[in-house]
């Protein structure tokens, strides 16, 4: 059978554009993005009045985070389990999981990230308004997990977006994720409002 009679479909321009985006993102993400560290070491230079205002605003921000549901794989079901009545994150003010990034300020990336999905993650992260935080849930999001050696898996989401809290586990128990969220609350309270 000859080459001319091959029935490979002609390349759809949407697919080709997507492929170019993925390849260029893969080439640009050779090194991990450093973790944000603006919450360290500001305490010496602040005076009392600014500290109180900072503290109240940050406390209010941290107790009413709206999480963005970004469940990719198995960890998503432990995240949903955290939202159900047994482990209940309503008591932390995070009852409603928003589906639109414009309305959310915390992105919990739960599951394996592949290079094909990476441009979508970056787009969603950029659509969120400041101040925003990211939790990497599960081994696959932290470092690629059991699939690190594969040809199509991103070795940790901090190649694409900066991460604030890492929650280890495969999958982490819902209590573990709640512990990660309380750590994030402690981190948010230490930030200065002049950052956002």
């Amino acid at each position, binding site marked *: *059978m000859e*080459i001319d*009679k*091959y*029935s*490979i*479909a002609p*390349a*759809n321009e949407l*697919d*080709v554009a*997507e*492929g*170019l985006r*993925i*390849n260029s993102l893969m080439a640009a993400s050779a090194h991990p993005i450093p973790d944000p560290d603006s919450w360290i070491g500001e305490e010496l230079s602040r005076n009392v009045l600014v500290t109180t205002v900072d503290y109240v605003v940050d406390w209010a921000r941290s107790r009413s985070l709206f999480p963005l549901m970004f469940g990719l794989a198995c960890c998503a079901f432990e995240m949903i389990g955290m939202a159900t009545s047994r482990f209940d994150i309503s008591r932390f003010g995070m009852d409603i999981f928003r589906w639109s990034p414009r309305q959310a300020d915390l992105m919990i990336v739960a599951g394996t990230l592949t*290079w*094909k999905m990476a441009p979508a993650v970056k787009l969603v992260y950029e659509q969120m308004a400041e101040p925003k935080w990211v939790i990497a849930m599960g081994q696959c999001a932290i470092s690629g997990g059991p699939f690190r050696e594969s*040809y*199509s898996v991103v070795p940790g989401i901090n190649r694409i977006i900066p991460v604030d809290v890492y929650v280890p586990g495969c999958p982490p128990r819902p209590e573990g994720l709640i512990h990660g969220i309380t750590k994030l609350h402690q981190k948010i309270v230490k930030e200065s409002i002049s950052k956002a």
Partner: protein
Amino acid sequence: MTTALNGEQVARRINKVSPGAVVASDKAAVVVTSESLFKVAEFLKNTPALDFDYLTDLTAVDYTDYFEVVYHLISLKHNHSLVLKTRCHDRDKPVVPSMTGIWRSADFQERETYDLMGIVFDGHPNLKRLLLWEGFDGHPLRRDYL
């Protein structure tokens, strides 16, 4: 219990209908040439005693000299099964006729085999990459990838 049909007996029946189609056969499987694959598949589906109307699995194995495409067939009516295989020896441009005209379940599985192994299925309505993105270099499941 699903009985696995004896490959040699089925090979004899196939040889009566299209002589020269069978390359090898043993107790488990029947290997046919890729040119006669479409005719053999039609025969297996339409003969009342065989009546293979359910294509369970379509996959390919890379033995380094040749590719072997494996089809697992089941008949729901008679509750028996058969393994059908075909080989292609061309490493650069392996071509096998597509089964989507006979069993529609071959649609996504052939696209996936093209994507991961590089085997082209002649006659498929929409053969493009399924799991990897357009612009990915190479076919990962081949033995000589990476």
